[in-house]
């Protein structure tokens, strides 16, 4: 993917950011323990932007995503998506998890149609949409298979298709390729970029893999732990990659070194 394409996609930018988090804190309070998972986190994601949140384990990056999804409540701060305060989970904020969350009793197609069925779409409309997303993730041949017949990478492709079929405002991805082997991971990254280009979705991507974040995203928020906070915002939309190949090795290495030093200290 070249610079031109990335900028093309963000041409149509709304006035306010799609995701706007201000002064977000999350404290877990037990009887004699107070754990500050997130401290004063502020970040924004523009419409149709691909942003990664990168950090060591335990830095609270997944907590940000779960709060965005409405699965957890913020202790304080302001979280707005598409102009609305987040008060609970909704189909407008699709999420893909690291663990496989296919409904094993449903076929691949039925999984993809799950959200559409909840919305009350008719069978014919559902089929049209599921056909489209089956093709998008390249699983047409497995439409009638159950989860147990699929590999890990295929399961995550279904999870992506299932979220996308709902046409959410934003797609939240919590280390979705963390459990995959290196090769599958790479092909999934390419697939995700293709989907992002085609569908123009706003994506927030959680990872602890520096290469992954540099490859996929336009911007990266680097986080630090204890308490979880954002240590730096990095512009990654610099044409490091072209057509999925690394072209600017020097710059890439420099940025990687810089991020490593951020994570180390």
């Amino acid at each position, binding site marked *: 993917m070249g610079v031109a394409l990335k900028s093309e996609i963000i041409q149509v930018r709304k006035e306010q950011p799609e995701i706007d988090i201000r002064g977000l804190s999350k404290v877990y309070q037990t009887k004699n323990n107070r754990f500050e998972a997130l401290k004063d986190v502020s970040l924004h994601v523009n419409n149709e932007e691909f942003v990664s949140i990168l950090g060591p384990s335990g830095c609270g990056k997944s907590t940000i995503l779960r709060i965005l999804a*409405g699965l957890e409540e913020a202790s304080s701060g302001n979280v707005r998506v598409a102009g609305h305060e987040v008060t609970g989970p*909704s189909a407008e904020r699709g*999420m893909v998890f690291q663990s496989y969350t296919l409904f094993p*009793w449903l076929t691949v197609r039925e999984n993809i149609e*799950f959200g559409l069925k909840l919305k009350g779409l008719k069978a014919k409309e559902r089929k049209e949409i599921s056909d489209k997303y089956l093709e998008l993730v390249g699983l047409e041949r497995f439409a009638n298979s159950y*989860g147990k017949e699929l590999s890990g990478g295929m399961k995550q492709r279904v999870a992506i298709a299932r979220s996308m079929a709902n046409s959410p405002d934003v797609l939240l991805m919590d280390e979705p390729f963390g459990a995959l082997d290196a090769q599958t991971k790479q092909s999934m990254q390419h697939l995700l970029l293709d989907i992002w280009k085609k569908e123009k979705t706003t994506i927030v991507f959680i990872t602890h893999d520096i290469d992954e974040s540099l490859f996929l995203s336009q911007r990266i928020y680097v986080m630090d732990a204890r308490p979880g906070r954002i240590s730096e915002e990095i512009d990654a939309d610099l044409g490091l990659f072209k057509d999925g190949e690394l072209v600017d090795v020097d710059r890439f290495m420099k940025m990687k070194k810089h991020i490593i030093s951020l994570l180390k200290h």
Partner: protein
Amino acid sequence: MKKNKWNKLLAIREDIPKKWYLLGILFTFIFLFIIWNALSFMKLVDEVFLPTPVEVVISFILSMVDSAYWGEIGISVYRVFMGFLLACLVGIPLGILAGTFKFAESLIIPVSEFIRYMPAAAFIPLIMVWVGIGEPAKILVIFIGCFFQLVLIVADDTNRISKDLLSASYTLGANRFQVITRVIIPAMLPKLMATMRLIMGWAWTYLVVAELVAADSGLGYSIMKAQRFLDTESIFVGIIVIGLLGLIIDRCFAMANKKLFPWAEGGN
């Protein structure tokens, strides 16, 4: 070469050739049968205690051609199913509730944990005072024996559904009610069937307990009656018939599980 073979057969939790597995099964059955033959035919044990296989087989055939014996089987099967179904009807919804809502758990689980340690058989005198010695008494014993175990296991089955699965359905637009009906219940069905299969075994145990203590019909009663006349063959037949019925029902459950849930991981 030979050492290698034994090494393979004794590998921890590794598969062995099917032939060897079947051989193992066959060996135990034949071994037990030989011991039985030896003890009974060589009169090592008094025949009042241990009849010969031949006598048991004759007694078995006589029972099978006796329509009255089928009546006993019928009434026992009826009691087992009534007690079992009643326990399922009440216990499964309560178990699902307890596994879904913490507040329901607090209402249901501790009290069930407490009561399940009270032996169901000890309730029999009380049940006789409450409902007499009619059919309700036997059904109630089976119900008490099964119900509390069932609630606890179903609650646990429900609780084990991955939280990520629930989170995923919320982000796909499901509300709480839909999460229960469209995710929690379908997700736990195979486990539920396995649990029902287990509880069915318990139902048979409590049936016999109930019939041994207070009944004038059924397989347990016929075992009891046989004991009074030192008719050991009939005791054997009663036990074997109950075992066979249990086996048939168990196989039905296993087959249903495979048919109904082709998507479930692992075998049944």
